[in-house]
């Protein structure tokens, strides 16, 4: 049987910081660029959504007068952890109970543009928004000096290229959270996945399906290295090989995969990569075996690519996890949807999510709408087809952690339908 192929192209240059030189810049530039970019978009939308309402700045506000403001939201949060807490005068004797996230009923939103800040009230629920989102707000200034919001204008889904019609089944497999080296990692389970993809398992039927897999995307957290080896303290000579052990193991497994089909590997928050977004590709020296194949590609996080003109965009999950800490939604897919309608992959960067201090661009702005938007390292598998107002169609996928669930996700390029591949090594099920 012959494996199917698909044309592959990446748009990852925007996430590479190779060329950037750090020159002591701060974070104000990235906010400025973001606001500037989004303002042009939002200004264009105002006439159709709120005709006859003037657009102004925070400075130009006049009490009681209807207007539209465009600015960056800032959410003032009572429970937001601060680095200053390390220095607080009284060490609390009883450890605080940590809530699942940092929301508090007294959180409030502030809108900021270059000219100033104004506190928001009215029809804008603080729970749904986070710091860093750029929106247009329709409302008026009250006598108390607040801005009473009547209506929130978000940019909405970006324009999308036409979904190419593919008339045969081609599959892409997504897997995340392999966590090789962690206590929950099960080598057999991973081997089953590899054998399934490479066609060494199952009957002819299953092998036929396997032969239609054109690419595997590993979305972050592939290894787990005990933090005690990396805290800067000297590591005893006998422990030194331990650091590299999980990576070697992963390399062996990956080599089996890349021998038969292309694999994209993205870094995640536990991987040996830099911390702040965009995370740079895992270094080739880590994969002495797999990197010898030209089917192996080490990609940044976020990762953006095309397969047969189907546009993919995804992250290893940090952007959505951070939204979950600072805002509320019914499920992870809703968070994903919001990042698309805000046209920003990671609005909380740099505020609560680490981010490179760019000076002249904001790489996380979503300028064109992907057909598939995936996020790795989530608690469970979820998927939905999102329909945009201009006929955009986006497949949202929340990829679960493989080491916890044994689930990988398989997407059909032909119709963007999703199925799960579930592997279990226990006999009772």
């Amino acid at each position, binding site marked *: 049987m012959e494996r199917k192929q698909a044309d592959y192209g990446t748009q990852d240059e925007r996430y590479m910081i190779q060329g950037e030189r750090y*020159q002591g810049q701060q974070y*104000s530039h990235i906010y400025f660029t973001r606001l500037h970019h989004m303002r042009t978009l939002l200004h264009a939308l105002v006439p159709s959504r709120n005709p006859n309402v003037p657009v102004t700045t925070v400075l130009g506000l006049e009490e009681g007068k209807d207007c539209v403001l465009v600015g960056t939201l800032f959410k003032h949060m009572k429970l937001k952890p601060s680095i200053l807490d390390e220095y607080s005068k009284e060490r609390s004797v009883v450890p605080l109970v940590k809530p699942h996230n940092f929301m508090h009923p007294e959180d409030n939103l502030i809108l900021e543009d270059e000219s100033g800040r104004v506190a928001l009230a009215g029809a804008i629920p603080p729970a749904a928004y986070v710091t860093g989102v750029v929106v247009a707000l329709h409302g008026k200034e009250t006598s108390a*000096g607040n801005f009473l919001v009547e209506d929130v204008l978000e940019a909405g889904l970006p324009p999308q290229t036409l979904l190419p019609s593919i008339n045969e089944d081609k599959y892409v497999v997504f897997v995340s959270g392999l966590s090789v080296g962690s206590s929950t990692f099960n080598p057999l389970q991973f081997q089953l996945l590899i054998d399934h993809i490479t066609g060494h398992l199952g009957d002819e039927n299953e092998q036929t399906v396997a032969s239609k897999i054109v690419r595997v995307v590993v979305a972050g957290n592939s290894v787990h290295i005990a933090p005690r080896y990396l805290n800067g303290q000297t590591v005893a000579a006998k422990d030194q090989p331990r650091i590299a052990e999980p990576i070697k193991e992963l390399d062996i497994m990956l080599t089996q995969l890349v021998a038969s089909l292309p694999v994209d590997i993205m870094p995640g928050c536990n991987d040996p990569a830099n911390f702040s977004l965009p995370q740079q590709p895992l270094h080739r020296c880590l994969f002495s075996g797999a990197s010898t194949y030209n089917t192996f590609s080490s990609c940044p996080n976020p990762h953006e690519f095309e397969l047969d003109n189907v546009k993919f965009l995804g992250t290893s999950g940090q952007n959505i996890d951070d939204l979950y800490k600072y805002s509320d939604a019914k499920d992870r897919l809703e968070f994903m949807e919001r990042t698309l309608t805000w046209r920003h992959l990671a609005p909380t960067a740099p505020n609560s999510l680490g981010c490179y201090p760019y000076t002249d661009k904001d790489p996380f702005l979503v300028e064109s709408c992907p057909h598939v938007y995936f996020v790795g390292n989530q608690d469970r598998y979820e998927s939905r087809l999102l329909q945009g107002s201009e006929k955009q169609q986006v497949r949202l996928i929340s990829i679960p952690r493989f080491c916890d669930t044994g689930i990988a996700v398989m997407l059909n390029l032909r119709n963007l339908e999703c199925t799960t591949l579930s592997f279990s090594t226990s006999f009772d099920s």
Partner: protein
Amino acid sequence: MSSGGKRRAAPPAAPSAAGAAKRAHPTPPGAPQPPPPAAAAAEEEDMMDEDVFLDETILEEDEAALLLLDRDEALASRLSRWKRPALPADLVSGCSRSVAFQQLDIDYVIGESHKELLPKSSGPAAIIRIFGVTREGHSVCCQVHGFEPYFYISCPSGMGPDDISRFKQILEVRMKESNRSSNVPKFVKSVELVQKQTIMHYQPQKSQSFLKIVVTLPTMVASCRGILERGITMEGLGSKSFLTYESNILFALRFMIDCNIVGGNWLEVPAGKYRKAARIMSYCQLELDCLYSDLVSHAAEGEYSKMAPFRILSFDIECAGRKGHFPEPTHDPVIQIANLLTLQGEAQPFVRNVMTLKSCSPIVGVDVMSFDTERDILLAWRDLIREADPDIIIGYNICKFDLPYLIERAEVLKIVEFPLLGRIRNSRVRVRDTTFNSRQYGTRESKDVTLEGRVQFDLLQAMQRDYKLSSYSLNSVSAHFLGEQKEDVHHSIISDLQNGNSETRRRLAVYCLKDAYLPQRLLDKLMYIYNYVEMARVTGVPISFLLSRGQSIKVLSQLLRKAKQRNLVIPNMKGQGSGQDTFEGATVLEARAGYYEKPIATLDFASLYPSIMMAHNLCYCTLVPPEDVRKLNLPPESLYKTPSGEIFVKQELQKGILPEILEELLAARKRAKADLKEAKDPFERAVLDGRQLALKISANSVYGFTGATVGQLPCLEISSSVTSYGRQMIEHTKKLVEDKFTTLNGYEHNAEVIYGDTDSVMVQFGVSTVEDAMKLGREAADFISETFIKPIKLEFEKIYFPYLLISKKRYAGLYWTNPEKFDKMDTKGIETVRRDNCLLVKNLVTECLHKLLVDRDIPGAVQYVKNTISDLLMNRVDLSLLVITKGLTKTGEDYAVKAAHVELAERMRKRDAATAPTVGDRVPYVIIKAAKGAKAYEKSEDPIYVLDNNIPIDPHYYLENQISKPLLRIFEPILKNASRELLHGSHTRAVSISTPSNSGIMKFAKKQLTCLGCKAVISGPNQTLCSHCKGREAELYCKTVANVSDLEMLFGKLWTQCQECQGSLHQDVLCTSRDCPIFYRRRKAQKDMAEARVQLDRWDF
């Protein structure tokens, strides 16, 4: 007990404010007032009245003084929004309604006596002015007539009515001689024979003859006193000098005492008893004239315990300093003034305003006023003060900086009409240097700005008075009390912002506004208005005294009030104490140092010194001098003989005044506390809580008053008796506890007193649970209380468990008041707050104590110390933890000994004069590695410079001079070989020192790439690892990248935090607050970030 006084010649500095003389030099009436002398008063005299004459000549001129308001209508309409509510019509026209108001400030002025109210008198007289606010928020100036200054002398025996009138004539002549320049027609108004008694010493007879001498003007009291003290010659009686009584009381206070007025209480002028002023002298809405006898003073109870809606103005100014200089009014313009006006009791200011020089972009919710010239700003500010009419002016360091700066600046610019900021029409504000000297608060130089009718409340002064903090910068104070960091813009940047455009000036305005808002928030948070008004009410002094004067005036005020009721008079004994007398202080039982793992019960004497004074009737008027004991032939059973050998009569013969004052204070405190429990309304609770606190402080300061050898009325017999009783009681308690709680008496264990201090005794009963210890503690307290005279009471308060007793006055322990859960960790005398230590010490000590006491994990604490020391030696400690900060109070030449921070300031000035610290700044520094034998002061360096140039710090300095002592103190009671274990173990072997990047020998060194794995020199230019380490590539890469990722995480956290403090996302962070704990870390993160990227790039091959 007595230092302080030696330095100074007579008159000695009292604990009360020395030299806080309120008024400028007296000027003869009619002559225009000269500008205030800038220099300090040559000789400091505490408690001195100065007569200010109403100067009517410039009244007209003032009317003509151009109000900016008249010129600028727009400004006028904007300012008019801030006016006080309009007076109701019936008050505007008639006098048919009684007027009640809460008074805030009382002073006096010399004017013509009121012809209508006092038809019989004429000529100049002292007129009391009371400023206050009505319930509706109207400002009132009440001029009280008819009250005359007086004092007493004891009447020489055998003086008849004729002698008295002769005496009066002689006195009048002498007065005229010594006040030649004065053209007052009459000096001595009357001399009258009265029956009084002196407060000093027990006297069986009920009264003696005294002469009450009434003079025309308040200052004449002092000059008359001088004449009488030097002695006058009278026919038939010969030359005689007199001891004067109550001759050192400020006129305003005398008036308050005689009219039963206490600071901050409500006064009422009944309908029909007042006249509307014929000629308006003040800017108050209501100006009344009345007789002092018609004034009704209400006790602060019920309706009258409330607060009137005072207007509080909080302001801050910004000046454009020149590079390298602290702003000086002679050169540097005032560029912005931010103002916030708040009504007392309301959460938010109702006006926010900022005045700027040159245009400024608008700010949401803020009234921005821009002016073209500095003259206009200053005048607009004056008009704002006049229109808004604030009762209290607050700010941070306004008394020493902002207010004097504005006034001096106006003088430099020759704006003569500027300093009309008080409430009196023609009165210009005067500035003078003063020294505030108090044993309790230390010596502090300040400036005294007279703003008639407006109370100034400088939060900086209040902080320095009431709290011991490591730094008093507004930034660290607000971090401490409000839990937020304040952005700090260096004064060299301020000029740049000002010289930018309207946007940069807006940036500065936002900063300025925040500086004006923080004092207001501090005032609210710390309930200062409530606490100070209550303190004024309890002690009876005007509110303005509380900040500008020491403790003794408060006690004196109470003593005078009480003495008046008892018909006693107080001699003016000032200057008699030599300042050298000492007596034995409180006792401290020897501490049995150790780490106690059984509960330690603490028995406390409740209000020890006050209760001793009450129990043993210790007072001026119950003291029997040794020579009197036999003379008076008093029965021994009605006398107390104190352990220090003094004799006092018992209550039956004569009840002491001090005990009576104390009883009232403590009873009032009990009431206030009971009311506090009942009270629901938060404002009422605030008042009551302020009151009980004021009562407690007042009760405790009575003892100090008697012991202040250079004070108003020292009486060492009392204070030494108090401490001797205290000592005796502590010993007695120890003995009783150890005798009673023994196995012989049926108790499980023998009790042991391990430590005792002034008013508390720590007992180990030997039981192992908190509950049992509490039971025994209570039993012991009740049992021992029985053996003391009432109201002395031993109370059981708390358990320490576990308890680490280091030495006298140094201990730490967990504090329990109920058996279930401990309340807190209590430490005393341990380096957790010392200001001259670096943060590392504080963190280390706090963490160790926490591990020892809360976690009970001794090995854990030891490990923690070792890790920290290892981190220090391995150069892994965050630099900000190593910064030591000291204030630069004078320049290098003025310091006798070379000091690290002074030398550093000098060096920094050579590098860059613009940002170098100047006098008044705090200088942060770290100790760096230097050549062998370098002096300590040569090893100090600017932390930023250290960061930028990778200069190695000296870990051994920190180990030996900073952390070793405090650590050993804690661990010595616990570990056997603390020093060897902690400071010399294997963890101290590895040392890493960073290489300086730009200095000395390094310029000659050739840099070579080394293998990242083993540091072997690599030959090729593009290699990362040597051939041996090639196999470890993955591992070594992981380590490098983990390091980078930690740095990135830190970078993100630090810089977003600063954005948050600054309150803006779209603008760069400007803050250079060196008080902020993350300032250096932020800088370091910035540098590390750049370096880490270079490191990582080496892997790209």
